């Protein structure tokens, strides 16, 4: 069992070194050996959990693959060598079964410790008027889950071939929606209600956390909170048809005041556009009405024939 002993030595020496490497290389390793993570706690927590698994995985990989390759070199058939006729070793077999189980128990604990920080929305740093919220005012108790106290920005996200639509909550009776680009205020927790109008899609901005599938008939929930201004890209992650590859999404984080200005401008643009559309409709209807009068000589008839025109 000399081989096993030397592997243990390698493990002892390697584990702390790897941990140190991982911690220092975390930002550089994003994408290459670690998931993306931007300025949102959930994504950072996922990356940390991934890192914990990665350390264990590397140890198991080096250990098992090492012994495998060691055997291939050490026990290669040579003249005069006789194979040991071993049928099994119950203690050893029980040992590695338990060993594997212990690693998994550890991972289970790590997962459930990390889970609340990934799944439950954090509290906002600002309220709906853009005023900062005191750090200690957020949670009544440490185990409190969603929804957090204070304001959150709840946005309805709808997937459709091949664009994301965002419907914002109404502020001052304004109606705001947008496509593809999701503008959010920095420091505000954003909760998303995700659905679909046609086939399945999957909402994903890698730097801002995990995926949430969009299924017609269901509402899926996720959240993020950006802590600095910036722009983060993502795209639909579930095959949704021929142009699945072009169904992009972008989150744009703005300081609260700028975001509010965008919100008002978007509301004004939508209102103007709707008024123009309504005006256009009215003109069209009038025009049609006149034509109908000219054509049939009676308004009454237009109504009944309206369907077929």
């Amino acid at each position, binding site marked *: 069992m000399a081989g096993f002993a030397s592997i243990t030595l390698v493990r002892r020496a390697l584990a702390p070194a790897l941990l140190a490497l991982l911690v220092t290389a975390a930002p550089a390793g*994003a*994408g*290459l*050996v670690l*998931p*993306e993570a931007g300025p949102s706690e959930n*994504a950072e927590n996922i990356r940390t959990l991934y890192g914990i*698994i990665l350390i264990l*995985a590397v140890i198991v990989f080096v250990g098992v*693959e090492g012994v*495998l390759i060691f*055997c*291939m070199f050490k*026990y*290669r*058939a*040579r*003249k005069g*060598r006789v*194979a*040991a*006729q*071993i*049928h*099994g070793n119950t203690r*050893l*077999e029980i040992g*590695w*079964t338990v060993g*594997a189980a212990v690693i*998994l128990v550890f*991972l*289970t604990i790590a*997962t*459930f410790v*990390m*889970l609340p920080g990934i799944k439950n929305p954090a509290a906002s740093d600002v309220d709906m008027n853009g005023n900062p919220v005191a750090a200690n005012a957020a949670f009544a108790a440490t185990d409190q889950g969603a929804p957090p106290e204070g304001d959150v920005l709840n946005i309805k996200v709808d997937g459709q071939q091949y664009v994301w639509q965002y419907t914002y909550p109404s502020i001052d009776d304004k109606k705001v929606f947008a496509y593809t680009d999701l503008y959010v205020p920095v420091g505000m927790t954003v909760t998303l209600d995700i659905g679909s109008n*046609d*086939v*399945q899609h*999957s909402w*994903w901005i890698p730097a801002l956390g*995990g*995926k*949430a*599938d969009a299924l*017609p*008939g*269901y*509402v*899926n929930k996720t959240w993020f909170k950006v802590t600095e201004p910036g722009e983060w890209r*993502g795209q639909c*992650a*579930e*095959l*949704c048809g*021929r*142009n*699945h*590859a072009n169904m992009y999404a972008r989150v744009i984080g703005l300081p609260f005041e700028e975001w509010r200005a965008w919100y008002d401008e978007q509301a004004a643009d939508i209102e103007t556009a709707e008024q123009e559309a309504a005006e256009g409709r009215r003109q069209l209807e009038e025009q049609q009405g006149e034509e109908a009068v000219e054509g049939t000589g009676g308004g009454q008839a237009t109504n009944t024939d309206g369907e077929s025109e």
Partner: protein
Amino acid sequence: MASVDYAARKAPRPQIVTDKVRPEPKGWLSWITTTDHKRIGILYLWTVAIFFVLGGVEALLIRVQLGAPENTLLSPERYNQLFTMHGTTMIFLVVVPVWAGLANYLLPLMIGARDVAFPRLNAWSYWMFLFGGLALYASFFWTPPEAGWFSYVPLSTKEYSPSGGQDAWIFMAHLTGLSSMLGAVNFIATIHNMRAPGMGWGRLPLFVWTILIYSYLIVLALSSLTATVTMLLTDRHFGTNFFDPANGGSALLWQHLFWFFGHPEVYIFVLPAFGVFSEVIPVFARKPIFGYKAIAAATAAIAFLGMLVWAHHMFATPSATVVLAFFMLSSFVIAVPTGVKIFNWIATLWRGTIEFRVALLYAVGGIGTFLIGGITGIFLAVFPVDWQLTDTYFVVAHMHYVAFGGSAFAMFAALYFWFPKLTGRMLSESMGKVSFWLTLVGFHTTFLVQHSAGLSGMPRRVFEYPIDAGWQAYNLISTVGAFIIALGVLVTIVNVVRSLKVGTLAGPDPWKANTLEWFTTSPPPEHNFDAVPRIRSVEPMKDCRRQVEEATGAQQHLESGRPMAHV
């Protein structure tokens, strides 16, 4: 007590040999009418080989398209068709039926039987498989399916996939599903009833153990698939609304039903591969398998747990946390028996005298590769981490490490190991080694970087990606690797075609192997065995050689370092 004639009991049962009376059937018609398990096995294997090449060419086209960003070689429509056909082909027409084919040939030989329990049903299974494949490939002349190999609704419904390609896919799933289920029933009946005298459950070759468990899994899982695709068929054409949320149906229902088949399917194609590893490694390490009982028990445990992990494919769907937690834990638990198998194989190599034959190289390469797929499976089982990884190239990499590392490497190990038995001729070892190293290096070149592509945000099933996404290098490396694999496979194809004519004559037992198929001639006569020895251990051929050595004094065991073919 009456006296028992022990000598008469131990004598082999008398058999009537008919191969000299009725000539072997010849000509192409004999291949269509055959009910011989060996001929059906060979039909399966050739058919699988052709589909493997077709699926491989589709993979190369996919890789060429992705080799450069914003490539316009393939239209999005064509690209979706290609990955749908690639996935469907490799899963339904390669990695599952290849084990039906190999087991068809080997299973009766390994347990000392004359044929399978229901030879005509067996022939029907093959023909349904073939026509299932043809139904799918016929769609190439019209519009192939393009909703992916798991055909998620609503994309696969009439509204979003109006073409007949989706119906061809359903037809393929029906035919190959029925083929697999009838084949499985046949294997189960054969293994339970037709084992050689003395072959108790503790002396069953491990490959036969895995085929038994594979068969039970097929019966349980494929029945779910055939029902599910029937529901899709009636939704598409007969006005039902199983999957339409606007009419009280559920889009999530498809995912549950599909993965209830889909995950056991992984074990359906990987357990027989484990069986191959368990047969090849002891032979070339010249050691008994380490922990026979643990390996057999682990096979059963994996199959049982494999029925309980399906929703780990659905961690990003709107599901309760308790559901996600359950499927995370069940996926964790399944890692334990899988790990046990890997440890047992390594312990079988430990202190052996390992002969570097091509079959062994493929087996060890397969284990080493599969190990990586197993480890990345743990990342994916942790559901909060899976939220980042699912539907990305990380999953594509993981899945190929499992399917290629597990199943395809075992396919090649089996080919190099049993080709002498199937044809009576040896494959070239030197060409085999070239093929192995090309395939191994090509495989890791292709798929290792795909983990990184996924981690940096590349979703699967995209026909193009922007230049500034930063995925160009990963994809280029991957594309180069795919062509190295293709080259490796090509060398083996040339090797097979060449060796059929000019390969060294193998004799009945070129490897000095352990199991009963090596007791008969290569290739075996139509009736398989003139006589079957009484089975006293899991290594009946070793027992036979020992007996001959004791009786005649002629050395039968291996002098280490000298290949047995030349003894």
